[in-house]
């Protein structure tokens, strides 16, 4: 009786072990899904303000525990909250060392000043600059992430960051707010 139960348990253990082994092979996950999930939250500006050469390396660093979650100014407060939720850690306000959140802008090349040095093209992390050596360059505005990485290398300072203007296309309905009315001082108790 005793032996039978041991055999049964052993058999079960072997069978389940084999099943798990097969499952591990069949459903093998390539790469770290956590990195991809962190990367999905990051704004993909590729600006490097976090101190890493792009959003993916920063995501990798967060996943490894090497970087803090509050180093991404373009992601803003909402980004930190989302990362805190995902990783189950405490929310921290943005670290000012890495810069402050700015309104979304796109780079603009002053085409009359551009000398066609291609330095900005090499700096652009998303290939959003069009041009060739000794030919005028221009920014593809729809692809520009506003990372500002092209601004510093320009030898003639012809790149400026232009904040995106509000148009009827991107205009948003505002959160309902109610104007506060000043009541006469002798009106008694404030309405609840």
């Amino acid at each position, binding site marked *: 009786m005793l032996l039978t139960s041991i055999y049964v348990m052993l058999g079960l253990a072997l069978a389940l072990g084999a099943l798990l082994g097969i499952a591990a092979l069949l459903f093998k996950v390539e790469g770290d899904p956590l990195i991809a999930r962190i990367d999905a939250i990051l704004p993909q500006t590729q600006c490097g303000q976090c101190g890493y050469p792009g959003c993916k390396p920063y995501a990798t660093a967060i996943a490894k525990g090497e970087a803090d979650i509050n180093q991404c100014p373009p992601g803003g407060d909402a980004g930190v909250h989302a990362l805190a939720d995902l990783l189950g850690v405490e929310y921290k306000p943005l670290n000012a060392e890495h810069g402050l959140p700015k309104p979304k802008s796109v780079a603009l090349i002053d085409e009359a000043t551009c000398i066609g040095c291609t330095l900005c093209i090499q700096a652009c992390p998303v290939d*959003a600059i069009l041009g060739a050596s000794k030919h005028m360059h221009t920014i593809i505005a729809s692809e520009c992430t506003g990372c500002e990485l092209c601004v510093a290398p320009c030898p003639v300072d012809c790149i400026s960051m232009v904040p995106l203007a509000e148009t009827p296309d991107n205009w948003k309905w505002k959160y309902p707010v109610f104007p506060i009315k000043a009541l006469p001082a002798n009106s008694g108790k404030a309405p609840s």
Partner: protein
Amino acid sequence: MNNIIQFASKLIKNLATTTASEVHRFNGGVHPEEHKQESTTRPIAQLPIPETLTLPLRQHVGYIPKLKVKVGDYVLKGEMLAEAEGTVSAAIHAPTSGTITAIAEAVIPHPSGLPDMCVTLTPDGKDQWKPLAPIDWKNTAHSELITSLRTSGIVGLGGATFPTHIKLRKDGASAIHTLIINAAECEPYITCDDMLMRERPDEITQGIAIAQHLLGAAKVVIGIEDNKPEAAQAMNTASQALANAVVTTVPTLYPSGDARRLIHLLLGVEVPHHKRATEVGIQVFNVATVLAIYRYFTFGEPSVSRIVTVTGNVASPQNFEVLLGTPMPLLMAAAGGAKPDTTHFVMGGPMMGFDLPSLNVPVTKAANCIIAASPALFAPPPPAQPCIRCTRCADACPVNLQPQELYWFAKSDNFEKARDYNLFDCIECGCCTYVCPSNIPLVQYYRYAKSEIIALDKAKEAADLARERNDFRLARIEREKLERAQKHAERAANARNREANPELEESDKAASNASTVEAKKAAIAAAVERAKALKLAAANNDAASTSTDQPAVAGPSSAEVKPDSDAQAKIDKKALIAAAMERAKAQKLASAQAGAAPKNTENLSAKVKAEIDEIEAIRTKALQMVKNKAPD
């Protein structure tokens, strides 16, 4: 089991016996004060041509059309100013003849109050139509009619402004069996469709016939609210001319004019929330839209005017037929002017309309009604109180949503949950706000949440694109690095090989020498061939351009008869040089014609200018030397 079968059979029976005269109530809805009598006492009036017309390019849902005119152009009435670009887009036409005086940003009737691109037209007062081309719609191919309709600028005139040509397209997905004409006009104050039906029922009927033909719909149901008996009577009489058309009056209950609510009312069909009405074989058109279709096909007139109700706090509320682009102050003046206690103006109805940023905006295709608002008509809402979870909003919601839940989610920025609760099915009809005992502006919260979600989705899309492009760039850099390394390795390996067996190198060299000699020979032969051809051409040219009595010195015939190869080569060389000189001359001439100096020599910095001067000096020096040498 029996119960289920009974229930199912009852359902089927219900569906089968459904006739158009039966009305299927939807859930919820409200019945605000109608205020329709004020503006129905007077007939539709024509407004004179104003001094200027301002036409926003954004007058419809979809892409902004592409401008086709420039400042200073003279246009005739009905001429296209901007053409539809992209699938969902509509053209803009000149509402009268005149001159384009400006193309600039101006405030448009939009809840944002932001300026947008507008074309300003100064009429010449002649109101002269362009040559109009009516279309024989009965004997023209469907695709041709739709392509033509794309240039008509007609959009849904009920207020949604969806380009009409898309709604009439045959995608082959599902055939339309029923065409519904939306004449419910459920919003208070608005009477433009009512008056249109009273005054022009025959034109509307003919428009319906065209729409029915284009859609291939077997049945037509015209839905009119029972507070418009005159209109229903007129349509009933006129629609006798149509095959298989029924006028059905529906009870006055806001929002019965919403397309899905009207479909439910008239046919008892609930369109699934993730599907379009066309997917279940139903298409809905507004009365004014079918009238525009009629005028386009019968007279060739594009969309240049519309009927606007001017009502509210004005002296004599009335409907006007107005050219698009007419400034709204003119409209107000025509209705006797706004009374002094008017605080603001509302475009659209009081339930779904929005406050105009100012009255100085033009009439657009969406402007069905302008209401002058005063505290007496629209009392400012009392302060919002906390939600008491009475769920009256849920009872009133015609879309069967849970407005109170949506409110909580929108208020706490919990957008994911709001989306899960089908926020995007909300038609923003305002019934929930209307019934809320706490006076919470619920629709404002939904609009806020919707636009935040749309913005987040756009940001997500942009981030995905940026990620993809960044990944691609990194992969490209990696690949280039590898390629370079490979090339280096190859070269190094070759060098090592050569060092190891110099014999191979010798033979290699010899072979390469031989091959280069071969190549050179071939090149020379080719050049000679080219020169010959050139010479021939030049001789022919000469013969043609100068007089024929001067025989070409080095004519092809003379070359042919001379077998002496040496002389031949000499002549070839001369011809080559001559040809090259000709080419250079031609180039010079061309550049002189194009503007003597190269374009990039303007606006140079001092440094570059100095450099150019230096080179210029060297060049003149060299020329001088050559000249000095020449006499020797």
